[in-house]
């Protein structure tokens, strides 16, 4: 369904030097499967998601959706072809309501379906549909609304960027069930979940570890999870040790 072929992305850093954010990513995502992308902060996970959505421009490589090269398509065109992205930190809008946002997500959907979708993410439609998508909502509420609109869109490729961020434990279980129910074994859809969550990653058929802009590991949760944990713990220990030595030297 979705194929990434040798994707590179370069940005200019603050000191004017070019830095590679993504370095030769080759991945294929097939329908009916849930894919997890994990790895340390700054590894390139969100950048990769935004490259797929067309928000960031990659500097080299090609992206195919059902065989069509979509590398040069705009964000809008990619969305219209069925790619959806649930933002890690969804933006707020003054004057637009949650009901407006759900109507944009699925303009032809029965209003009843919009209400059900909102209820499915744990928000009561009577209390939320007319509320402004502004500063009055908490981060967790924003995140749940983001999930609701992405699920409502029925995208061929749905990318969930840290769906657990800011969401309470009870709701995370609901979100997991929704993603599993909507995508696992669905012959028309694929879901890509960027996450660090111990409850979310095990539902994925395949986990891809991104580190320093490269795929460093991939496999099932059982195959990969302990590797990630050990590897990250090892790095944290090394870095902490380094900081400690530096502080002692300074002292």
């Amino acid at each position: 369904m979705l194929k990434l072929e040798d994707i590179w992305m370069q940005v200019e850093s603050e000191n004017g030097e070019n830095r590679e954010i993504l370095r030769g990513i080759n991945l294929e995502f097939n329908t009916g499967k849930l894919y997890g992308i994990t790895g340390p902060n700054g590894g390139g996970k969100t950048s990769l998601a935004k490259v797929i959505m067309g928000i960031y421009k990659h500097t080299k490589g090609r992206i195919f959706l059902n065989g069509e090269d979509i590398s040069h398509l705009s964000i809008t065109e990619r969305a219209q072809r069925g790619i959806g992205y649930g933002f890690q930190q969804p933006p707020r809008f003054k004057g637009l309501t949650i009901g407006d946002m759900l109507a944009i997500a699925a303009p032809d959907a029965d209003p009843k379906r919009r209400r059900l979708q909102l209820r499915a993410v744990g928000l009561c439609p009577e209390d939320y549909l007319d509320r402004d998508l502004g500063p009055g909502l908490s981060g967790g509420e924003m995140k749940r609304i983001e999930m609701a609109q992405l699920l409502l869109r029925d995208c061929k490729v749905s990318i969930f960027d840290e769906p657990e961020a800011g969401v309470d434990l009870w709701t995370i279980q609901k979100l997991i069930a929704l993603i599993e129910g909507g995508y696992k074994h669905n012959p028309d859809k694929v879901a890509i979940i960027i996450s660090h969550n111990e409850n979310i990653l095990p539902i994925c058929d395949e986990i891809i570890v991104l580190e320093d802009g490269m795929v460093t590991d991939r496999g099932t949760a059982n195959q990969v999870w302990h590797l990630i944990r050990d590897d990250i713990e090892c790095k944290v220990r090394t870095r902490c040790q380094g900081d400690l030595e530096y502080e002692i030297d300074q002292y």
Partner: protein
Amino acid sequence: MKLTNIDMNMLQAVTDLKKVPDGAVNIRLNGEAVVRSSSPNIEIRSRTDGRPGFEVEVKAGTRGEKVHVPVLVTQDAYKEKVYNTFIINEDAEVEIIAGCGIHNSCGADSQHDGIHTIIVKENARMRYVEKHYGEGSGSGKRVLNPHTEVIMEKGASAEMEMVQIEGVDDTRRTTVAHVGEKANLKIIERLLTQGQQEAESDIEIVIAGQYGNAQILSRSVAQQKSQQVFRAALIGKTACTGHVECDSIIMGQARIQSIPQLDAEDAEAVLTHEAAIGKIAGEQLIKLMSMGLTEQEAIDLIIEGFLR
């Protein structure tokens, strides 16, 4: 008198009405009250001082009634200054739907200056909605200059929503208010300017009565080469609360000046303000585009929501 299609379109634009409503109504068309009717609780009468305009008086204790007083200017190059007075008596509750539509299809300017005095008496409640709209193919300007004075007596409450939808080339808005003891006034202004249009709004509220409260909430969008100046002053003379919030989206080569002013004359006065001018946030555009909207559709939607 029968209203033409142009008249009816403008009536709908400024009042959302598709036909002349029942009850208290005064429709002024090119300087003449073409429709006027009072209701048992709301009287609309000619002025006694000889000036053009009317007086509206709402009986004490009236509940949940509306009065429609739109002004339509469709005659080319027509200019007028009109004086209207509204008296909302004690304990009454009323909604006033005003507004002005101006159609100009010639090379000379058309102009309506509405001078309003609104007295909201003890414990009365008022909601006032005023929409301004301009249309027509002429190069002459469509000019609307409202001057509104509001007097709020003890315990009175008012919400005033003043909106300029589109098509008004030049506007100078002046609003002055006097808020009495335990009275509550909220002014909401929403303004859209495009092309070479200019808009200037001056709001000054004096909170003179103890525990009075006033809020000024302004949202505006300036597009292309249009210009806006917004001045909002809150003067707290006693123990009171007040808040000014000015929020603007600037686009193209437009210019916006936003000047909030707080003046506390009593140590128990609590006055606050927030002001922000900025372009549409890139992340908002990207979010909507990632849902399948084009960039222009996303811009239009953000503006529509912002000014709603």
